[in-house]
């Protein structure tokens, strides 16, 4: 049946391919072969696993369908996807990026891209005029996260897409926090949607994966060429696990989002917490802008403790959340951004952005929220 007409919950379960055409198996086989027989010397649909593999094709087709794009690509990690997407730029080009973004992307933009002759300017991406005034004659792209990580700044995606079209810049969005279930950037005019599939899409903290979806077939061809030439492809087993994770995305994300909303509210009322960043809160600064382009607040929030000394107590006392970088798992994951997810960013830069030592990011899992709250409350008892 035509997948494009199905509702998201159904699409997640069935994806592009839900039956093995040879055996009728309800699950696409894990195709481990590195190479494929060429009958009479002629290649069939597949010739070599780096160039194409049925297990990977399943997940690539799935992300294209979910993002409403034409083509999808799967990589060995989220950073492999970010790097591969940015291979659409060349030496001499200029890229505009938000000042607060995931530490790994920040490291890539400030060290790897300059080595390849690509300049990067960091701007406050909540300000469209600021973005526009950063454009130079050699600007070729705008790279975004919204909500940003970890300060939850919201960028107007339609506005940026419009600037991109008018000024002929490619627009990239890291859509990891929202997933295509909550935010579909290609529909809003963004050119390239990028995911760390390690997070909500995989959802079980047991694989690394990156994904890209694009609507424009010409961009798709260029990315395909680069993926095959560079070879940072997702392995068949991880492709299977990722496709398996995607099947339960809706039930997981809905539950996690409900839990996050509850915790955000309670954290905001807690005396040891100075501030909570979560798009679902009534007084969240970017609320209207966020909900004009996304169908939910997501399941990640961050909060600032009133005292930096409280961080140590919190990290020592918590029993339930995993204290680690990463997010989007069924298990609640708590990150001390300063020392973990954003460790790659120098202290002075972090301070100037307002990413202080007392900032905690919480990726809320699907445990019972009362268990999570009891645990957090215990951890917040610092005097």
């Amino acid at each position, binding site marked *: 049946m035509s997948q494009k007409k199905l509702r998201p919950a159904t699409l997640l379960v069935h994806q592009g391919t839900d039956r093995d055409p040879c055996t009728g198996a309800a*699950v696409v086989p894990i195709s481990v072969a590195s190479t494929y027989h060429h009958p009479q010397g002629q290649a069939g649909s597949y010739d070599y696993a780096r160039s194409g593999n049925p297990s990977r094709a399943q997940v690539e087709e799935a992300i294209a369908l979910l993002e409403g794009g034409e083509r999808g690509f799967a990589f060995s990690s989220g950073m492999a996807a970010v790097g591969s997407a940015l291979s659409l730029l060349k030496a001499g080009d200029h890229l505009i990026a938000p000042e607060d973004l995931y530490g790994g992307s920040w490291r890539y933009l400030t060290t790897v891209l300059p080595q390849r002759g690509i300049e990067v300017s960091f701007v406050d991406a909540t300000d469209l005029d600021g973005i526009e005034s950063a454009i130079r004659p050699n600007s070729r792209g705008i790279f975004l996260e919204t909500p940003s990580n970890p300060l939850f700044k919201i960028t107007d995606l339609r506005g940026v897409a419009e600037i991109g079209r008018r000024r002929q810049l490619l627009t990239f969005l890291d859509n990891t926090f929202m997933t295509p279930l909550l935010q579909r950037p290609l529909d809003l005019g963004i050119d390239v949607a990028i995911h760390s599939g390690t997070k909500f899409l995989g959802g079980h903290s*047991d694989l690394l994966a990156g994904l890209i979806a694009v609507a424009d077939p010409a961009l798709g061809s260029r990315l395909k060429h680069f993926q095959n030439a560079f070879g940072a492809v997702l392995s068949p087993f991880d492709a299977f696990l990722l496709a398996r994770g995607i*099947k*339960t995305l809706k039930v997981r994300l809905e539950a996690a989002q409900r839990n996050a909303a509850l915790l955000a509210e309670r954290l905001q009322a807690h005396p040891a917490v100075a501030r909570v960043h979560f798009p679902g809160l009534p007084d969240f600064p970017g609320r209207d802008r966020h909900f004009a382009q996304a169908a939910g607040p997501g399941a990640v929030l961050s909060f600032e403790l009133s005292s930096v000394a409280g961080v140590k107590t919190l990290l020592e006392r918590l029993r339930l959340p995993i204290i680690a970088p990463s997010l989007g798992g*069924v298990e609640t994951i708590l990150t001390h951004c300063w020392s973990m997810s954003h460790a790659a960013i120098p202290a002075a830069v972090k301070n100037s952005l307002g990413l202080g030592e007392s900032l905690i990011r919480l990726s809320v899992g*699907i445990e019972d929220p*009362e268990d999570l709250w009891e645990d957090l409350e215990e951890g917040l008892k610092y005097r």
Partner: protein
Amino acid sequence: MNANSSLTLESRLVQIGVGRDERTGAVSFPIYPSATYRHPGVGESTGFDYTRSGNPTRQLLEEALAQLEGGSRALAFSSGMAALTTLFLHFAAGDHLVVSEDLYGGTYRVLDQIFAKLGLASTTVDTTDAEAVAEAIIPQTKALLVETPGNPLLGVADLGALGQLCRKQGLLLIVDNTFLTPVLQRPLELGADIVVHSATKYLSGHNDLCAGALVAADPELGERFYFLQNSTGAILPPQDCWLLIRSLKTLALRMERHCRSAQAVARRLRSHPLITAVYYPGLEDHPGHSLSQKQTEGFGGMVSFRLESPECARRVLKKLRLISFAESLGGVESLITLPALQTHGDIPPRERERLGICESLLRLSVGIEHVEDIIADLEQALEE
């Protein structure tokens, strides 16, 4: 953190294995493929010697299953039938079992065609009727095996009453909890001694592995099952143990959705003119409705229905597009079967007919797709 009994079931499911690998702090517990283990010295063991006897990944799964069902010990097998077969090996020639007549065909087959020859006799009975069960008990009877809800007609047995009966008569009460899982029904709390699962179904939930489990309430019985598991060796391999652990993390969410969608599908099917009967314990006029409300926390995701003719059933199977016509159940994808020819094909035709498992009966495992897509597929397939 290690599985902590102060947490709710939902949280315990998610937290399985978290913090258990102390060396690395890995959030997802490792897969231990090693077949054997080095001994520190003669007569010394790390606790693991040979993977059939014990494997760290399987141990984690087994402990989690025991805790979820509220048992003292659980054992994981290579399929649901391997779990049942190992359980039947507990009995001796000359023993007798009383079993539900509304029962998975594979269980019927192994009892009727294999264990009967080995001297383990069995009698099938309507286990929704406690008096009929009492009448079927003979001096050699050692255990009562109940599926509730039944397969495929979803009859509901009163586990509390049957537990009392078994205690009084000195019988083991065995409950196949495949259809409901410990999220919705915990038979050991209701008086059962043993729970058996085809973990291939809801526990795994993705139609991508075969697994079975036995859970014993009593530690001695658990030890006996471990002896049988180790002696006969139908163990679940470490990769599948890990995949099953991964599945358990979303079990509560999946069951919630399966129940909600099955309820909506059952209601919609009931009003269709080509359908003569719908079997779902969540329907108010289902004979086991109030009993289900008492002993379960949900009615599950299985719905059976009867069409006006076998031809009509075949036409529906042919026209379904989203729902796969395939054996098995409990996955995220909706599956439908024709029990008379598939899952219950090994039950003699006359017996099947008596039970009402005819060729116009279909059994639907409602998946977690959008419920309106599932209903739309059924409605288009039912169009004449």
